[in-house]
C-alpha cells in the first residue's frame, strides 16, 4: 500500500442544502397520487373522478406548505424524508377512497352500523391537520437536544399514554383490543404518540447509562453478559410491554416498545448479548401470554393455519382473504380499482390496507412500497450516523427503528409471515392518530437531520492565541 496522503487533504464536502431536489421530488410525489386517483375513477366509474383537481390542488398546497416550512426553518434537512412521506400519504388517501367506492364495504357498514360514511374525506382532513402539526414541530423545536431535558418526564408521559386505554370510562374496547380512547366523539390511539415520547426517554436514559451497560459485563460463552443490576431497566420495559399485551390485548404495541428498546440498547452499547437476551425474553413472554390470552391465541391460530379455520373464526377469515388477495395480485397486479381486496371486509382500509396494494399493484407495487418505507428508514439511520450528539443519534435510531418494526409487524402480519397484530401501516392506513403521529416523527427526523447536516460553525477563537500582555516594571 503506497502512502501518498502527504500531498492530499481529505475534507468533508460542503453539503448543499438540496432544497430544490426536495421540491422536484415533492412535485413528483404529488403527481403520482393524482395519477392513481384518476386511474381508480376510470376503472370503477368509467370517468375521471369529479373531485380530482380539487383533491390534487389541495394536496399540492399541503405539500407546498410543508416544503416552505422545511426550506425556511430546516434548511439543511434531508431532501428525501418529506417527498417519501408525502407520496405514501397521498397514495394512502387514494387507497382509502378506492375502498370507499366498494359496494361490498358500503353494504357491510350499513348492515353493522346502520349507515356508511366514507373515510377518505376524514383522512384528507387528518392529513391537513398532520401537516399543520409537522410545521408546528419544526417551528417550535429549534434544536432536538432540548428534548433531552424531558427524559424522565417523557417516561411518565409515555406510561400515562399507554395506560390511558385501560382507564375505565375513557378507554374504548374495539373488537377485543383496548388501544383506543374516546374523547368528545373522537377516538384516539395513544400508543402511536407514545412511540415518539418513549423514544425521548430511551435516548436520554441510554445516553447516560450506556457505559455502565456496555463495560461492566462478564464474558460467558462468547457473549458479554451484563450485571444483574444493569438488567433492571430491560426487565422493567419487558414487564411493561407484557402488561400492555395482557391488559390491552395488543400484541403490536408491546412488540413495538420492547423491540425499540432492544434496538436502542444494542446501538448504545454495541453488545450483541442484548439482542440475544431481548429475543429470548420476547419469545418467552409471547409464548406465556399466548398460552392463556384467548385473543392472542386466535391470532396465532389464524397465522398457523389461515385456511383450516377459515369458516370458524373471524380472525382467520381476514388473514385468509388477505393472503388470497396478495396471491391474486400476481406480479403486476389487477390494476387500481379492479381487485377484490374489499372481500376482507372489516378493517380493509386500516389494518389490511396493504392487501389492497398487493392485489391491485401486485408484487412489483408491494416491493416499491416497501422500498419507499425502506428509504425513509435508511434516511433515519443515515441521520443517526451523521448526528454529532449522542442523544440525537439514539433518538433518530429509535424513531427509525420503531418505524421499521411497525412496518415489519404490519406487513408481516397481513402477508402471513408473523401473527397479525392489529397495528396500522404508517401513512397508508385510515386513522387520524397514525397519520398525525407519523408526521410528527418525520418532522423530528427532519429536525435532527437538519442539525446533523448543518455546516459546523467556525471554531471559537482560541484563548491561547490572544496577545500576551507584557507588564514591565516602570
Amino acid at each position, binding site marked *: 500500500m503506497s502512502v*501518498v496522503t502527504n500531498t492530499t487533504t481529505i475534507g468533508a*464536502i460542503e453539503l448543499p442544502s438540496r432544497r430544490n431536489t426536495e421540491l422536484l*421530488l415533492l412535485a413528483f410525489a404529488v403527481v*403520482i397520487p393524482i395519477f392513481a386517483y384518476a386511474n381508480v375513477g376510470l376503472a370503477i366509474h368509467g370517468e375521471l373522478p369529479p373531485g380530482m383537481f380539487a383533491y390534487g390542488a389541495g394536496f399540492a398546497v399541503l405539500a407546498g406548505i410543508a416544503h416552505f416550512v422545511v426550506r425556511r426553518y430546516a434548511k439543511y434537512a434531508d431532501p428525501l424524508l418529506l417527498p417519501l412521506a408525502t407520496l405514501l400519504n397521498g397514495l394512502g388517501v387514494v387507497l382509502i377512497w378506492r375502498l370507499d367506492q366498494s359496494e361490498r364495504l358500503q353494504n357491510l357498514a350499513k348492515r353493522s352500523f346502520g349507515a356508511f360514511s366514507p373515510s377518505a374525506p376524514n383522512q384528507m382532513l387528518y392529513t391537513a391537520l398532520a401537516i399543520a402539526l409537522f410545521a408546528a414541530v419544526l417551528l417550535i423545536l429549534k434544536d432536538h437536544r432540548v428534548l433531552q431535558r424531558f427524559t424522565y418526564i417523557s417516561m411518565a408521559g409515555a406510561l400515562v399514554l399507554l395506560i390511558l386505554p385501560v382507564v375505565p370510562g375513557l378507554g374504548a374496547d374495539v373488537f377485543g383490543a383496548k388501544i383506543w380512547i374516546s374523547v368528545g366523539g373522537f377516538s384516539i390511539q395513544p400508543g402511536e404518540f407514545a412511540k415518539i415520547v418513549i423514544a425521548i426517554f430511551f435516548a436520554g436514559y441510554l445516553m447516560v447509562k450506556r457505559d455502565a451497560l456496555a463495560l461492566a459485563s462478564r464474558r460467558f460463552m462468547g457473549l458479554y453478559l451484563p450485571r444483574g443490576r444493569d438488567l433492571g431497566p430491560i426487565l422493567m420495559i419487558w414487564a411493561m410491554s407484557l402488561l400492555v399485551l395482557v391488559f390491552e390485548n395488543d400484541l403490536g404495541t408491546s412488540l413495538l416498545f420492547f423491540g425499540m428498546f432492544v434496538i436502542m440498547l444494542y446501538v448504545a452499547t454495541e453488545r450483541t448479548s442484548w439482542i440475544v437476551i431481548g429475543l429470548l425474553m420476547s419469545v418467552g413472554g409471547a409464548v406465556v401470554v399466548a398460552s392463556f390470552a384467548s385473543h392472542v391465541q386466535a391470532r396465532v391460530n389464524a397465522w398457523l393455519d389461515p385456511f383450516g379455520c377459515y369458516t370458524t373464526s373471524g380472525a382467520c377469515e381476514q388473514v385468509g382473504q388477505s393472503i388470497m388477495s396478495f396471491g391474486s395480485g400476481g406480479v*403486476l397486479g389487477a390494476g387500481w380499482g379492479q381487485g377484490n381486496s374489499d372481500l376482507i371486509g372489516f378493517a380493509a382500509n386500516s389494518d389490511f390496507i396493504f392487501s389492497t396494494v398487493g392485489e391491485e399493484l401486485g408484487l412489483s407495487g408491494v416491493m416499491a412500497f416497501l422500498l419507499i418505507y425502506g428509504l425513509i428508514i435508511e434516511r433515519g439511520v443515515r441521520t443517526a450516523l451523521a448526528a454529532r450528539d449522542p442523544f440525537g443519534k439514539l433518538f433518530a435510531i429509535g424513531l427509525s427503528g420503531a418505524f421499521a418494526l411497525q412496518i415489519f409487524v404490519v406487513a408481516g402480519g397481513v402477508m402471513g409471515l408473523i401473527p397479525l397484530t392489529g397495528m396500522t401501516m404508517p401513512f397508508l392506513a385510515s386513522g387520524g392518530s397514525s397519520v398525525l403521529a407519523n408526521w410528527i416523527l418525520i418532522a423530528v427526523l427532519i429536525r435532527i437531520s437538519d442539525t446533523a447536516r448543518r455546516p459546523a460553525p467556525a471554531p471559537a477563537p482560541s484563548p491561547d492565541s490572544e496577545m500576551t500582555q507584557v507588564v514591565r516594571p516602570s
Partner: protein
Amino acid sequence: MSELTLTVMRLGFLAVLWLFVIVAVQVIRSDLFGTRVTQRGSSRRGGAGGAPQQGGGRQAAPPQQRQRRGAPTKLVVSEGILTGTTVALAGQTITLGRAHDSTIVLDDDYASSRHARIYPDRDGQWIVEDLGSTNGTYLDRTRLTTPTPIPPGAPIRIGKTVIELRK
C-alpha cells in the same frame, strides 16, 4: 373504459412508481461520496488551482520521500482520556498540547499549551521534541532534553497521556 386503456394505465402507474423510487435512490447516491480529496503539493505546481478530485486521489503525486520499510504508520494513544485515538502518520508534523489547534488536544492539567511535537526527519525517522513544556515529555522513563528519535513501541508520556507509534 376499454381494457387496453386500463392495462396501459396499470403498467404506466407501476413504471411511474418505480421511477420515483429510482430517482430517490439517485439522490442518495450523492451521500455515499461524502469526502473529497484535494491535492496540495502537486496541483499547485501543475497550476490546477487545487481542483477537487473524487476517487481517492488516484492521480496524487508520488511521495516526496520513500516510506521506510518497517516505519510506523500510526500514532496510538494508549493511556489517558483520549485512549484509543489513532492518528495516521503521513509525513506531517503532529503537535501535542492543550492549544486548540494542536493535532492532539490534551485536556490535562499537566500538559502545556504547546507541549511537544512529533515529526519525521529527512530519512523518515520519527523524532519527538519537547517544546519547552513545564512538566516535561518522557520517552520510556527519561525526560527529553533534545529532539530524540522514537524507537518502535516506546511509550511517550505527557502528563497522564501515553502515546506510542505503531506499524
